[in-house]
């Protein structure tokens, strides 16, 4: 068990900051990210299967993504719709502009929530963590081609969810991500 504790401390030092960043991006709230990462490590500490896990970083990241989307699901009732605001009232950093932008990001995250779990993990790693397909493939034990296919399918799913299935002028979904 002490070995498990050592592993967790190592994981915290190695991946704690990136997990915190990931949770902040998925929840859009630093305070919630702080609580969720705390909860994540408590769960990992209490887990009996920690010794069986081969890639603890990947396991923790997957658990963090699930935790974040569980939290989002619990928050759904409180969503305040800003659908009526079709365009921002101003281009500055006013509270209203921030609110509208936040609402836009919430919509995307709510749509990502509806993607099935394995594809969602790949999608989050690719588009929110900006990782390359090769890295994703290496971490998840898949081929880069499989990761790319999963992302493409998830993006198509997102377009369906968000009400438009038209491809943009860019065509290829990889253009937005820096490899």
């Amino acid at each position: 068990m002490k070995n498990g504790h050592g592993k967790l401390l190592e994981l915290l030092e190695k991946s704690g900051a990136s997990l915190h960043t990931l949770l902040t991006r998925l929840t859009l709230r630093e305070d919630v990210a702080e609580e969720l990462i705390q909860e994540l490590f408590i769960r990992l500490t209490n887990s009996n299967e920690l010794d069986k896990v081969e890639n603890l970083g990947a396991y923790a990241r997957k658990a963090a993504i699930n935790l974040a989307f569980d939290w989002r699901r619990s928050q759904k009732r409180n969503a305040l719709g800003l659908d009526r605001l079709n365009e921002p009232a101003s281009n500055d950093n006013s509270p209203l502009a921030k609110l509208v932008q936040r609402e836009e990001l919430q919509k995307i995250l709510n749509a990502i929530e509806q993607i099935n779990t394995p594809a969602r993990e790949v999608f989050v790693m690719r588009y929110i963590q900006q990782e390359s397909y090769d890295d994703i493939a290496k971490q998840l034990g898949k081929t880069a081609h499989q990761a790319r296919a999963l992302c493409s399918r998830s993006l198509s799913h997102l377009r369906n969810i968000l009400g438009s299935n038209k491809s943009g002028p860019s065509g290829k979904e990889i253009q937005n991500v820096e490899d």
Partner: protein
Amino acid sequence: MSKIDENEILRRLKLLSQIEPASEATDRTMERVRNTLMGKEKGREDSGTRVRQFPKRPIAKFAAAAVLLIALGYVIGRLTTPVPDMEQLQSALESSLRASLTKEMDQRWQRAFTANCIKFKDELQQQVRRDLTEFASKTLAASNTLTEQHLIQLVDLIEAARERDRQQVAAALEEIELNRLQDKSQIGSGLVALAARTSKLRDKKPN
């Protein structure tokens, strides 16, 4: 939901990927998690040094520890001193039990608080939103009622003014009619007087 094309989706994903927590927040979080992990490990080590035959329930461990301590104290007391100082023994036992219980309870509370903190925050947030929504709807209803009352008062005032105008017009018409009748009678009597004088003048002329 408004239509969002792929470019817009990618733009928003890009925005999401650019979100970075403040470095102070990350440091604070790391420190907090580190402390929690250390605290849990220490608690585990402490519990690991106790009697291993009773690992299932903490209450059983405490009971066993208490029994052992009492027995040990009794035996030591019997062997070392002719008259055992029961008060001292009791106070030592009490302080020992209190210390271990306090520590265990603190750890439990901390764990429970950590696990439930986010839940409490969310519940509080939901409660505040519900209250605000309720307050807004009540304020709106009260405002509507007040506006309606003011409108009713305004209509009453307009109606009263119109009534007053009508009465004044009727009084004026009546006054005009009275004046007309008075003028008519005066003109009539004037004409009679004129006729009488004309007749008198005609009678006088032949002379």
